[in-house]
């Protein structure tokens, strides 16, 4: 089988290496986006359905028991959006954690979320002896509301 490679073989190999280099090149530029940051969203028009990723700002979480609405703010450090949602996030939801929101921009700095996906930070730490898993902010609010009346 020590023939000279035929032209079609060369074409196949050239196409394969082209595809490989193209994919590596795309990996380096990583220009394809999956979600917007608050700063990126600020320059987009109102009304477009997007995914928004941000950190839940500390002290911003409010629960309106009457309308069953959750309000909080997400930030990327420079821009902050006020989020309104009727969706209940998981127990992991808390201040300072990253969330991906699906929904639409409904004002200059406000966002209406149809879904809240709590993004895991990929930091794993064991519970220390004597510690318990801290409840999420929403659980704290709900517990406080039940205690108050």
């Amino acid at each position: 089988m020590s023939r000279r490679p035929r032209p079609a073989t060369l074409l196949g190999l050239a196409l394969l290496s082209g595809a490989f280099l193209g994919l590596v090149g795309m990996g380096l530029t990583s220009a394809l986006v999956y979600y917007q940051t608050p700063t990126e969203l600020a320059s987009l028009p109102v009304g477009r359905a997007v995914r928004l990723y941000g950190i839940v700002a500390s002290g911003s979480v409010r629960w309106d028991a009457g309308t069953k609405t959750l309000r909080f703010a997400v930030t990327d450090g420079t821009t902050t959006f006020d989020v309104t949602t009727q969706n209940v996030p998981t127990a992991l939801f808390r201040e300072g954690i990253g969330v991906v929101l699906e929904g639409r921009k409904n004002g200059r700095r406000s966002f209406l979320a149809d879904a809240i996906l709590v993004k895991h930070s990929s930091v794993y730490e064991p519970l220390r002896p004597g510690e318990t898993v801290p409840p999420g902010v929403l659980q704290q609010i709900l517990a406080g509301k039940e205690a108050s009346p």
Partner: protein
Amino acid sequence: MNVFADAALLAAKDLRAELRSRGALVAAGTLGAVAFVVAAMAAGPDRAQLRQLAPALTWLALLYAAIAMADRLDLVDRRDDAFSALWLALEDRRAIYLGKVLALAVVLLVLQGVLFGLAVVLLDLPLSGEALWLAPVAVVAALGAAATSVLVVALAGASGQRTLLMPLLLLPLMVPVLLAAVESTGAILVSAPAAALQWLALSAAQAALFAGLGVLVYEHAATPE
């Protein structure tokens, strides 16, 4: 004669046969029209939603046309065992693969023109100067779809479950091509054409990957019984 001249000759043969029967164009055009009408019924009076779905619908209709057409191009030679003759006559059998890819890509390009025209009329697709950017997207997507389909039809065609396995094997492999085509079409017609370039590059990489693999392994897939 070298392999590329053989491929061009074979592609011309398939295209001439297709041009004379014109069955494929009529079938795919009707298929597209039916898909659009059903979608328009589902969307109701919401024109904006319909317009947003238009790129996906167009490419989905094209995908089904690609499956049907690849099947047809394969059967055309298999039926009277012309394939075995080609197999023995050719200096490099991969000319069959290259020829089929070329012929299918040309047919798919024409189909895209038809389906796009239908989408403008039936789905209220906005038409502007930027629609010209669709041309490179269409070419790359047609080549990617053709390179993948011709290879897969050789596999599915040799099995006992041709009609079941064709879409089952082809759809997952076509997802990147399809996704890139839909996203870049949406980017061109709805938002920023610049965003389409990235998707175009992804689409091209997929097309090159499958065409390259196809050239290297086609002989193993298509050996006649």
